[in-house]
């Protein structure tokens, strides 16, 4: 993360003046997906850039140190070495942006990354993920423990009851959802969020980051996300400090696309290393 959000005084009038034209936003979402397509070597370049935004995530009940280790290794070497060599990108240090795990597994993640010789940040979900309906005291304690174990980023689940009653908090990054809901990151929602980020930047000068998470599985989708951020916010936001994609299977799809670009053939599942 670059600079922290210095914050401003809460001005509720900013919120009450917001108007959203829903059909127009839906139209814009369709347009982004349909019109902005990237092909050939530019597509490969965009896909590699997309890889550098991924928060490689594993949030399942049966996480243990072995699959965390595998994940961390994949985070350090997201694309197979020979493919990167073919694209002449093997020495650019392409890794994912971060590794995202449950608080109890932060220790394992830190250890695995150190063993691999990698300084990617470890992000931890905290504060009663995914529902957030736990006491404030335990939530704060979770954050403290995760940070002690070595996590440098925390995905905080906000207290939705406060939101629904109009009591707001501030943050450095906004995320579309936990990724565990029925509807997660959709383009119309993202458009509204990105416009809000832009508004906030114009009003206060603070740059807030954006992270869509949940439901981003195909490489084509990830390209659409990148072009959306580029169109609405500009190239400044296309940096890991301000943009992350929370995903797990996305990386394998990207890798397969790059394999296809390099060799001209579609890979089978067993051709590429597991994450």
């Amino acid at each position, binding site marked *: 993360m670059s600079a922290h959000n210095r914050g401003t005084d809460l001005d509720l009038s900013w919120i009450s003046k917001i108007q*959203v*034209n829903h059909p*127009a*936003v839906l139209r814009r979402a369709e347009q982004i997906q349909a019109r902005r397509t990237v092909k050939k070597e530019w597509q490969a370049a965009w896909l590699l850039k997309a890889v550098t935004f991924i928060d490689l995530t594993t949030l399942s009940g049966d996480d243990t140190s072995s699959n965390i280790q595998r994940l961390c290794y994949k985070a350090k070497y997201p694309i197979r070495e020979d493919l990167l060599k073919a694209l002449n990108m093997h020495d650019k240090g392409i890794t994912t942006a971060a590794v995202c795990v449950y608080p109890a597994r932060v220790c394992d993640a830190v250890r695995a990354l150190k063993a691999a010789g990698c300084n990617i940040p470890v992000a931890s979900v905290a504060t009663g993920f995914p529902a957030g309906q736990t006491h404030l005291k335990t939530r704060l304690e979770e954050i403290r423990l995760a940070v002690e174990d070595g996590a440098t980023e925390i995905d905080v689940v906000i207290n939705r009851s406060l939101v629904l009653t109009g009591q707001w908090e501030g943050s450095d990054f906004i995320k579309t959802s936990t990724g565990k809901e029925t509807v997660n990151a959709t383009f119309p929602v993202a458009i509204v969020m990105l416009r809000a980020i832009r508004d906030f930047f114009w009003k206060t000068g603070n740059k807030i980051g954006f992270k869509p998470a949940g439901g981003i599985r195909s490489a084509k989708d990830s390209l659409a996300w990148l072009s959306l951020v580029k169109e609405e916010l500009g190239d400044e936001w296309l940096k890991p400090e301000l943009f992350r994609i929370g995903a797990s299977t996305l990386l394998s799809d990207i890798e397969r696309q790059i394999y296809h670009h390099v060799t001209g053939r579609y890979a089978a599942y067993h051709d590429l290393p597991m994450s």
Partner: protein
Amino acid sequence: MRTGVIGLILPPTFSFLEMMWRICPALAMGCTVVALVPPTSPTPLLLAQLAGELGSFPGILNVISGPASLGPILASQPAIQKVAFCGALEEGRVLRRSLAGKCVELGLALGMESLLLLTDTADVDSAVEGVVDAAWSDRGPGGLRLLIQESVWDEFMRRLQERMGRLRSGQGLDGAVDMGTRGAAACDLAQRFVHEAQSQGAQVFQAGDVPPKSPFYPPTLVSNLPPASPCAQAEVPWPVVVASPFRTAKEALAVANGTPRGGSASVWSERLGQALELGYGLQMGTVWINAHNLRDPSVPTGGCKESGCSWHGGPDGLYEYLRPSRTPIQVSCLSKNMNYDTFGLAVPSTLPAGPEIGPSPAPPYGLFVGGRFQAPGARSSRPIQDSSGNLHGYVAEGGAKDIRGAVEAAHQAAPGWAGQSPGARAGLLWALAAALERRKSTLASRLERQGVELKAAEAEVELSARRLRAWGARAQAQGHTLQVSGLRGPVLRLREPLGVLAVVCPDEWPLLAFVSLLAPALACGNTVVMVPSAACPLLALEVCQDMATLFPAGLANVVTGDRDHLTRCLALHQDVQALWYFGSAQ
């Protein structure tokens, strides 16, 4: 019943989709089409080739690729029954003039500018996307005028300029490019407009990633253009957008309606009531709310005022290519010695009727203007003779000034009348019918003096009353319709009254014709200025006596006098919305 052979004339910057919008309904209704397209694009020729390969009907679609000057020649071919013209105003005018008198229908769709009205309760970001879509993509047909509420002016400008910076122009169909080019001519037109605007003190902002070579013109935003400058009156070319502020909704409507163009517009506001109010108030053919340029083949689009009077899409579009069966074959009435400048200019002076024999007739009737009888400006009258050559009465000699007064009175009454419910309008027409019946004996005796038999005279009066009642009933039936289409949102088709209608009645059937022409105009919410039958206007004036008591002032105005002169005055008056003429070939 279908119309026959349609000639289609398209402008140099038409799009393929627009062409299809015109050809498909014509073909669907059973007409055959001859299209004149500019020589720059081969796609219509390919289409015609495909149509030709359809086998059994080789001639249904024909395409001629040629310069615009062929347009009037195509239009004057004898076999063409209707010409659909789409393009610039001047050419439309020329075409209209050249087709006058021939029995060829003309459908005009002129001008390609549209309007975007942004209020302070709108989602500004989405409106910016709307502007981009309307003005700087390949979907929008022409330039755009923006009316922005002052309180959101700065915010909107900032967002729009930032968005313009991310537009890309270039060749190619790939998704990386937002807009292409419309040719060197369009580029020059835009260039000239921008230079003129700058010289008149406007601020010009251009941005976007555009190749510097000639046919590509960057997206341009013009602001601070003084409203009285000639640029502000001219049509905005593509890809220029002219923005001006407004303070209140009322001012917005005044500015928006204050141009002679009436094509299409969009209103952006998240408050339903305000959006609908502005939508109703705009005098445009098509109004979109919170969106721009939404098109669907089942929704009719067209224009008002100078933007033409033809409709495309939907059932109205299909009616364009049909005419009612049992229409008599129209004979071309082309006058060889038609001189527009001298027609109807001088009023032939009328000699006094000679020594008056018999009882002195009633004092001369005045003009019925503004709800009462007034003396004419020229202060002279003309005698009316009955069938045996005796003097029947005197009526006023109306002139240009009287026409002007009548039209003004009609305009004053128009908003009130249009706002009346259909039931109220029906009520008034029925009251007039009842009044006519009460006057039956007087009217019948007048008709008798004109040489009509008593029985026929009474029948005429009865028929007039019956027609008034019939139109009164129909007034209730017209209305607005709600249509469901493929677009996300409802489509409301409003049938609005035109405004002021001028009617010049034929000589025959002095009472019946007068009433039959008066009733439909009033039933639909218009106000009228009528020139009654020249041979016997007295019957119309009798009806006026009833109208004086029943109708609101200015609703129906009657001006008597020399028919040619009055027709000329009405035709040249630019604030009369329509003119019905029954008279001589000239």
